[in-house]
Every structure is written in C-alpha cells, then in structure tokens.
C-alpha cells in the first residue's frame, strides 16, 4: 500500500516555505495523519459524503458517442453532479472537517474557476466556519456567477489585484493571510500542490473518486483500459488515478490546457518539455517559468486550468512514465463540450471538457471491447457566460441586452 504521507515524490514536492509557515505545516501534517487513523473522523467524512456531497456520483456509459466513434466504450464519471458542481467538494469537506478537529474557527482558500471557492464556502456554511476566499480579479470577472454563490454561502470574497491577478496570485494572498492567522485559521488549499502535507492530503481526500469508479466498473464487470482527466494543479486527476498508481494498467492520461496553441505561447501546459523544474508556492515541481525563474503568464479558456504549476506527484508520475500527458486546445475542449451535450445530455465544465476532447481522440484508436473512463470533474453550469459567448455569440449578446433592458 502506498504511504499516505510522502513529502517528496521522486525529486518533486517538499516544504519550501518561510519559517513562519513551518510550524503550522508540521501541526497540519500531524493532525492529518492522526485523522486518517481515527474511525470517528472517517465516520464523519462518510456521513458528510453521503448526506451533503451526494456520493456516490454516477458512472455513465456514453453509449451514443461510443457507437458514433466506433472505437472504445466511453464511460463518464459524473463527478460534476456532486453538490456545488465539481470534485472540489471532496477535498473541501475533508480539510474542513480536519480544520474543525484541529480547533480552527476560520478557513481561507484560493480559487481560480471559483469551484474550489464555492465548495469551501458551502462546507464552511454547513460546518459553521468563518470563510474568506481569495480570487484574482481576472478570474472574478470570468467566473462572476461563482462569486455570487460564494457570497450567498456567507463567505467573504477578496479580490486579488496583485501580479497577474489569477489563481497563482490568489495563492500568494492566501499564504500571506495564513502566515498572520494560522493560530485560528486553516488554509484549505484546493489542489494537490503546495507545501507538504497538502499534496498528500488533497490526494487522499480526492481518492474517493477513483475508488468509487473502480468499484462501479467492477460491479459492471468492466476493466478500464484508460482513465482520462484534465490537469490544472491536478487534484481531480490524482484522486481519479489513485487506486491505479501502483499498477501498470490502465493507461492514466492527464490532459493539460493547450490554450490557443503551444506555438502562440498562450497555454498552461507544463509537461512534455514545456515546464522547467522550479520552486513556487512551497513545492518543487514543473512550472512555466522564464529562464530567470520568473513565473510565466498562462492562458486557458478554463480558469481552473490557468495555473503555471502542476502538482508534484503528477509531475513525478509523468517523468516516471506512469501518467501520459496530452493537451487539448480551447477550441478542442469547446467542441467536446458540444459533442457530449448533444449525444449524452451532459454538459462538462470547460476544465473537464479538455479530458473529454482527448478521450474523443483516443476512442477511435481503440477497439469496442476497450473501456475509457473520463472524469467529468465538474459540470458546466458555471461556464454559461463563457460557453454561450463562445458557441452562440449573437444570441447570447441579444439575451444579455434584453436582460439589461429589463432591469
């Protein structure tokens, strides 16, 4: 069995933080390891998963798409049907329960697409924790509906105007807050990255996705040939892949944001030779950096993939060859979103649509007895303002004008 606390994954990971954060991280590591061994904590987690998250989430056979392509059978883990619309809730629940167990009264988090912020705000509402969410103003603009939800849940949403004003800058602000507030505050990081023990902790809380999928496949006597997940920081991917990391099969495929095309420089793909080994946000991994080590600007149509680093365990698994990396462009992701909506009645989040796009490419390469499983880590409701503008610009503009006129 793999260890639950690793610190390093090959050369990646670690705890590269200023001394002020060292104590809180040591405390967190101890509390996390103890909680995992505590049946009472596990029972709490199970109860919240059952009653609040809505687990298990379904595993859908995308029969129409599979037949149309004539290749592998495509299955979709509908993780986006979890409460608050994405896999983010799994980690938020786990860490928030841990925070309560540690006696913290306040939770802070960063958010990019807003899904982690929404999940954290919702969990804090139900557990009675004060909640502050840091969000770059660029992300705030493109994911405005999620800001509305976070505030409705009672969270304070702080706009981050420093740096590039996106997810990485929100992480910086959250780290600053935590350095001054750790006595009573837990930093609920949203992806499988950051200083240890966060990568291990987030993987453990997200592993429920992979374990459930494996069980659902087994119940249908199916053996997966490939698992496909999008990778920003990589929390949905590492949780989805977790039960299979020690095995040699199935193929594990991580899909990065190809943005407007690698040649344009406007993307968020760190693997396949594009990223450099560096240290940012407390961990060592592959990052998009200048030669000097300055963090590069990234682009993706999906805010959740618009981050310059990849979780250290995925970087290691990529270098070791266990996880294959591919890319999907903005356009490719939007096309996949349309395909699954029409064929299957399922609307992917733009992030997850990158995984869908790659699965649509992969399926025809395989035969009908093969099985591909996509993790639809989020559903697409939150992206309405982006998707509608991209796919039906004129109709959307007319609608917005009418709305404004009616106000």
């Amino acid at each position, binding site marked *: 069995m793999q260890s639950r606390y690793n610190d390093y994954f090959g050369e990646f990971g670690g705890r590269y933080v200023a001394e002020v954060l060292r104590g809180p991280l040591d405390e967190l590591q101890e509390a996390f390891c103890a909680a995992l061994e505590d049946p009472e904590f596990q029972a709490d987690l199970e109860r919240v998963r059952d009653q609040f998250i809505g687990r298990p989430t379904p595993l859908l056979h995308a029969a129409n798409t599979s037949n149309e392509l004539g290749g592998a059978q495509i299955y979709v883990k509908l993780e986006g049907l979890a409460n608050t619309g994405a896999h983010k809730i799994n980690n938020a629940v786990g860490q928030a329960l841990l925070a309560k167990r540690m006696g913290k009264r306040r939770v802070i988090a960063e958010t990019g697409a807003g899904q982690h912020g929404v999940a954290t705000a919702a969990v804090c509402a139900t557990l009675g924790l004060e909640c502050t969410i840091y969000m770059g103003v660029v992300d705030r603009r493109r994911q405005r509906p999620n800001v509305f939800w976070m505030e409705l849940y009672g969270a304070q949403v702080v706009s981050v105007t420093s740096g590039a004003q996106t997810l*990485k800058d929100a992480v910086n602000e959250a780290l600053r807050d935590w350095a001054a507030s750790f006595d009573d505050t837990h930093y609920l990081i949203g992806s499988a990255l950051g200083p240890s023990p966060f990568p291990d902790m987030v993987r453990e809380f997200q592993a429920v996705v992979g374990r459930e999928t494996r069980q659902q496949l087994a119940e249908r006597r199916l053996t997966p040939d490939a698992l496909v997940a999008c990778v920003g920081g990589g929390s949905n991917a590492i949780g989805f892949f977790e039960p299979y990391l020690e095995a040699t099969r199935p193929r594990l495929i991580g899909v990065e944001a190809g943005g407007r095309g690698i040649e344009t420089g406007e993307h968020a793909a760190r693997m396949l030779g594009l990223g450099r080994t560096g240290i940012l946000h407390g961990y060592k991994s592959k990052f998009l950096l200048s030669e000097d080590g300055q963090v590069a600007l990234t682009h993706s149509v999906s805010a959740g993939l618009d981050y310059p680093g990849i979780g250290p365990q995925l970087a290691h698994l990529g270098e070791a060859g266990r996880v294959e990396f591919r890319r999907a462009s903005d356009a490719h992701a939007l096309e996949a979103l349309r395909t699954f909506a029409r064929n299957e009645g399922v609307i992917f989040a733009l992030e997850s649509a990158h995984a869908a796009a790659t699965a649509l490419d992969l399926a025809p390469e395989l035969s009908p007895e093969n099985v591909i499983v996509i993790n639809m880590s989020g559903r697409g409701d939150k992206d309405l303002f982006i998707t509608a503008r991209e796919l039906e610009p004129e109709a959307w503009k007319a609608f917005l004008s009418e709305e404004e006129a009616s106000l």
Partner: protein
Amino acid sequence: MSTVPIMAHMVSHYPDRETSLAVARALLDAGVAYLEVQFPFSDPSADGPVIQQASTVALANGFKVEDGFELLAEITAEAEVPVYLMTYASLVVSRGVEAFCRAAAEAGVAGLIVPDLPFDYDEGLYAAGSAAGLDVVPVVVATIAEKRLAEILARRPQSLYVALRSGITGSETVLDSASLEFLDRLRADGCRVFGGFGVRRREQVEELAPHLDAVVVGSQLVRTLSSALENPDEPQSAAPGVEVVGSRGANGANGRGSESTEAIRAVPPAARAAAVGAVRAAATELVSGSGSGTH
C-alpha cells in the same frame, strides 16, 4: 540622539536601475550598517504588498537576474558596509544553486537570505554558499519549535534573520517581551542577529537596537520611495511615521493594483532626485533620530 545599526532593504531595479543605484547610495550615505538588496520575483509570497508592487514594476521594466548582479557589483564596490542579497528559491534554483552563489560572491555580496529555502529544504544552498564564502542567513521566527531552533544553531550560522511577527513584511510589528527575550537568547548563543518585519518608526528601532546587531527596515523604505514616486508633489518628510494598513484579510490586502505598474515607467530626473531624497531622509531619521519624530 545616538546612531543605531540598521539593515536597510531595497528592491533592485525599482523602479529602474538608475534610481535604485541612487537609493543604494542614499542609504549608504545615511549610515546604514548593512544593505539588503532584493532581487525582484514575480510571486514574492513572503513579502507584503509594497515590496510585491515594487518587484512587479521592476520586472515590468525588464529586470533580469544578470542585471541584478551587475548592479550589486557596482554597489558593493562603493559600499563600506556588508551587502546582503535577498531573493526567492525560484531565482536561485533556476540559475543553479552553485552558479547563483558564485555569481553573488563575484558581485561582492556578503551573504544570502532566501526565505523559502530553509535549512532542511535548501537545495544545497548552505553548502554552496559556504563554498563561495557567503554568509547564508537562516530566517527564524519567535514561534519556532525548540528542536528546530537547536538544529539551526547546531549548524553554527554566522548570522540569523528574525522575522519579528507572524506574517508578512510591511505590517505593524508589536514587540512583546517574549520576542525580545528570544532575540537575547539568540545573541547569547554567539550569532549575529538581524531582526525586522514591520519596523517603521524610530521608537521601534530604539527599542529593538539593544537586542539586535542590526534592525531590519524593509517595506518602510520601499514605501517611502514608492509614495514619493507616485506623488511627486507631496512632501515626504512625515514618511517614517506614516501608518499604512496591512491587516490580514482586509480588502486592501493587495495594495495597489496593476494600474500603477504602468504609471512608474519613466522617472523624470527631478522626481528621481526628490524620491531618493525622501528615502535618504527616512533612513537618516531611522539611523540617527535626527529630524522629526524624536522622543
């Protein structure tokens, strides 16, 4: 009023090379005991909004690490006091830890401060720094676990840098007796002790000086410079006493937005002279207590 040893902080190439060289000279003229030059990093998460904004401007104006070493060589050639280089792990490991240390030593730097490369996750910094003849300075906090502090002290560092409050640079420091006792303990151990974070007034300097080898003044001097550059017509004499909000979680956590990044692109000579003069006055006040604000 007696002079006290100050470690004055500045950001290399903020807002441009010429101004930052003039700032270095002004700080040295003011009689600081140590100069701490920070290489701008895009994501300085251990710094507050003032230093982040200065770094953002320097980077927008094209700062390269090579330029930083070149400027340092010029500063150290003139300086009669030790010059320390502060930056983040990303810049150090991107160049290669050994190459970075060699370049720093060649630039005449006395030591390195890299807060996100603690001794047990240092990527070889302490060994490489030592080989290059550099004083690699561990950053510690008063809340550090005894066991960790003992491990650091067992490595016999020449100097220690104490972050005097939990949190980020540029916020108000409240000096409690526990912090002062912590400093005294460290010095009793034979280390040279620098301490700062949030020091902005002469009274704080005077209170701290007996407990330290040098009082680090960082954000306050950068803030003096940035205020003078942004508001060239306003007098800066009150700078050392200025109170700026730096509390956690407030909406103002990020300070100025990117708009001002563009605003400081070209510094007219008169504005530069005035801004550098403001920094000189602020540093002189902190070092010597001359001018306004003595008690």
